[in-house]
């Protein structure tokens, strides 16, 4: 046999290996599902890893309730089609207190709605291992993340005290209360993700494709306009041809000007694009090293 796997197939094989390790070594694993493109790839990999059976873990979505309507619709449709078990966790306490990025600032809003509720949901389900779709390429503190990211009883990441991870031999041993975050897509890039989606014909949320949308222009950012977004003085929504490269909460996800309406067009666009995909994620821009700080607190 003189075959070499293509780089996409090599990445797929590695990711499936990681998912099966988790299914075999943990009694209560869960897969974090954020509805985005990386999550869509994760679903397909999970389907393949355990085919013809269904994955032996549920999906967990932290629904801040600030998600796009298209996202929630997509989530419910896909999970029903695949027959995957979905747990939706709504951070009700924070919502009752009216937490939003306008009043509390993006950092505090994110800490309360995402980081804290993720930790709550993991504790509530007594999940020992949480599979997530984060990639090392996304952000520089993620570049130092292990595939098995050990978290202490408070869900915190200690970058100086990570377990060595030679070969693909993952050490998943934990004590009571400790957890492991597992990142099967560690070695994928944004381009790999789109090439795989194209190759495998994986459904994704329509927000990723360029369309004329009502937007607000704030500095360098394009913010989707909706009824509950307070307008700044003198601001009016404009119709702009754009798409989303990465999806989060509506208030904190910027769009990019784009004419890419198909998967091949998105791939072509990425080959020439000069801006990173998190450029439009407002939370990352808060301060130098902000992702590292959030991860230390328990963000995934």
């Amino acid at each position, binding site marked *: *046999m*003189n*075959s*070499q*796997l*293509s*780089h*996409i*197939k*090599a*990445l*797929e*094989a*590695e990711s*499936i*290996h990681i998912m*099966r*390790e988790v*299914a*075999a070594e943990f009694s209560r694993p869960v897969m974090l599902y954020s509805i985005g493109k990386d999550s869509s790839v994760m679903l397909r990999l999970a*389907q*393949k*890893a*355990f*085919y*013809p*059976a269904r994955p032996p873990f549920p999906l967990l979505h932290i629904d801040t309730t600030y998600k796009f309507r298209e996202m929630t619709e997509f989530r419910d449709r896909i999970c029903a089609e695949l027959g995957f078990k979905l747990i939706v966790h709504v951070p009700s306490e924070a919502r009752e207190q009216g937490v939003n990025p306008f009043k509390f600032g993006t950092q505090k809003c994110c800490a309360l709605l995402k980081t804290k509720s993720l930790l709550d949901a993991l504790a509530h389900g007594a999940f020992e291992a949480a599979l997530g779709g984060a990639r*090392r*390429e996304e952000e*520089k*503190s993620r*570049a*130092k993340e292990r595939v098995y990211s050990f978290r202490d009883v408070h869900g915190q990441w200690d*970058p*100086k005290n*990570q*377990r*060595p*991870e*030679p*070969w*693909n*031999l993952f*050490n998943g*041993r*934990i*004590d009571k209360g400790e957890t492991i975050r597992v990142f099967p897509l*560690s*070695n994928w*890039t944004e*381009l*790999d993700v789109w090439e795989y989606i194209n190759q495998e014909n994986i459904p994704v949320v329509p927000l990723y494709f360029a369309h004329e949308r009502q937007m607000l222009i704030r500095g360098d950012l394009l913010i989707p306009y909706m009824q509950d977004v307070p307008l700044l003085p003198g601001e009016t929504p404009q119709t702009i041809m754009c798409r989303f490269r990465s999806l989060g909460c509506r208030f904190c996800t910027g769009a990019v000007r784009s004419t890419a309406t198909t998967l091949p067009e998105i791939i072509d666009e990425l080959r020439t*694009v*000069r*801006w*990173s995909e998190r*450029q439009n994620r407002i939370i990352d821009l808060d301060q*130098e*090293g902000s992702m*590292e700080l959030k991860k230390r607190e328990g963000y995934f």
Partner: protein
Amino acid sequence: MEPQLLRLTTAGSVDDGKSTLIGRLLHDSDAVYEDQLQAVRKVSRGGLDLALLTDGLRAEREQGITIDVAYRYFSTPRRRFIIADTPGHEEYTRNMATGASTAELALILLDARKGVLPQTRRHACIAWLLGIRRIVFVINKMDAVAYSEEVFQGVCQELAALTEQLDGCLLHNIPVSALEGDNVVRRSDHMPWFRGDCLLEYLETLPLENTESALDFRLPVQYVIRDQPDFRAYAGQIAAGSVQVGDEVLILPSYQVTRVSTICEFERNSGSAYAPMSVSLCLDGQFDVGRGSMLCSPANPPQVAQQVQARVIWMAETPMKLHHPYLVKHTSQRVCAQVSRLISVLDVHTLNTQPATELRLNEIGTVELETHLPLFFDPYNLNRITGSFVLIDPISNQTLAAGMIEGAASRKIEKRNQMLQPGFAVWFTGLSSAGKSTISQAVYERLWAMGYKVELLDGDVVRRHISKDLGFSEEDRNENVRRIGFLADLLAKNGVIALVSAISPYRAIRDELRSKIAGFVEVYVNAPLSVCEYRDVKGLYSKARAGVLKKFTGIDDPYEPPLNPEIECRTDRETLAESVAKIMEYLETRLPVASHSASYHVKAVSTPD
């Protein structure tokens, strides 16, 4: 053609400009986004400090050093690259080893002004130990030596002396200036005397290692997929070789042989797969296969041993302890283990080994490891997956060491060579359906797993092969038994334990064999005729009673029980485990401690003997 993946690792210390080189590689190949550049510009002190592109953690930026392994990604139309960016200080040997463990190529940086340093030797040595066979020495800071060809040649000569020790390694030297961008992504005008490719060209065009391994099929079973009540698929990532529907596979540790009935593929049906694909296989028949089992080629299986010799890189603050309970994670197996001996420690500056009494953080030692269950492995230089393991502390859960198996523990091999295993002919006699095949098979598996050379001679199989010409008269039966005896004698003389399972009904011929074969052990597998007839495993008693089968032992031909057998198994009164234990107890007191073995056998289909 689809782009392929090249994983590389880098080594060099802060001062060699490693971060700058990687930053330059990413920047000049357009792998850095504008917003990332802006973020770096903001914190650069004057100009654009490319090193900051790769220093990810706050502490690193504050101290200006790299602490942990970071992974970088960039691509060209030809290849996708994953760079494991690892720190070079001695105290970070563990990180370098981690980065090198999955890499195919190493970039080792040198400062042109300083030439080969002790750490250069250490970096090359670690890369080589971890199985990397392509090393590029990047002679950096050529701008600081006026792009002098003489300086470059001088460093190359020093390198030649160092690299003599790196067997089978493809080596290449490139003069660069990461700061100025000479010979990194573009060829340099400052060094017209250098006619070779620039670094990126070299990385793009270097032939990839042939994934065709010297080894045949190996699939460590990670997970069992269950679906419909009877559906079982064995999932894992192929560690070596290839597999097709219909291929014969050997199951370890049970030593059963079967065939692959299906390769479960999502939305496709190619019927074949090869390393390093993640697959799931269904097998013909029902077997005890679970996580930790291995499916492999029967013609070329991995080695099996409970004592191995291995190189370990100690990664924990607490030094290695001998005879201390550790866990070994090897392929998909996690087993209890202890280090029984520290043979030597490697001096990474001289590459010599020295006897030592302790193995500490970042030291590399050769040890003997004993595991509570057998490992199915290949030497690390033949296969990185089946040859690697990590040691885990069962109390703190920390990963303590990375290990590379060199082979079954040599001490035991020496022992076997000095003290050749005495051969035996263990002769199972008894009525049809008394339990001879079942017991002999179980004993076979036990001895095999313990590492003895063992062979099973089944009367039925012998009849099909070398006694085809014989019938069932007393004369022919004696001739058949004599032939089996001859084979068993040959095996026993060569230190093999031959397990013979044959009715062999007549006492005289058995006694004749006893007098001829040294190490003859008679096992009377005894169950009353009524019990055997009730069991009638092969349906032969009913045929004999119906008169279809003539001269059937026990019905119309006599069985003469042994008068003084070494062992008697009453299979109507004792369990299989009890019978096996009796035989093992007898043999174990007469055998030396076992090492490893690599034979296997194909289970036979039965016909009457």
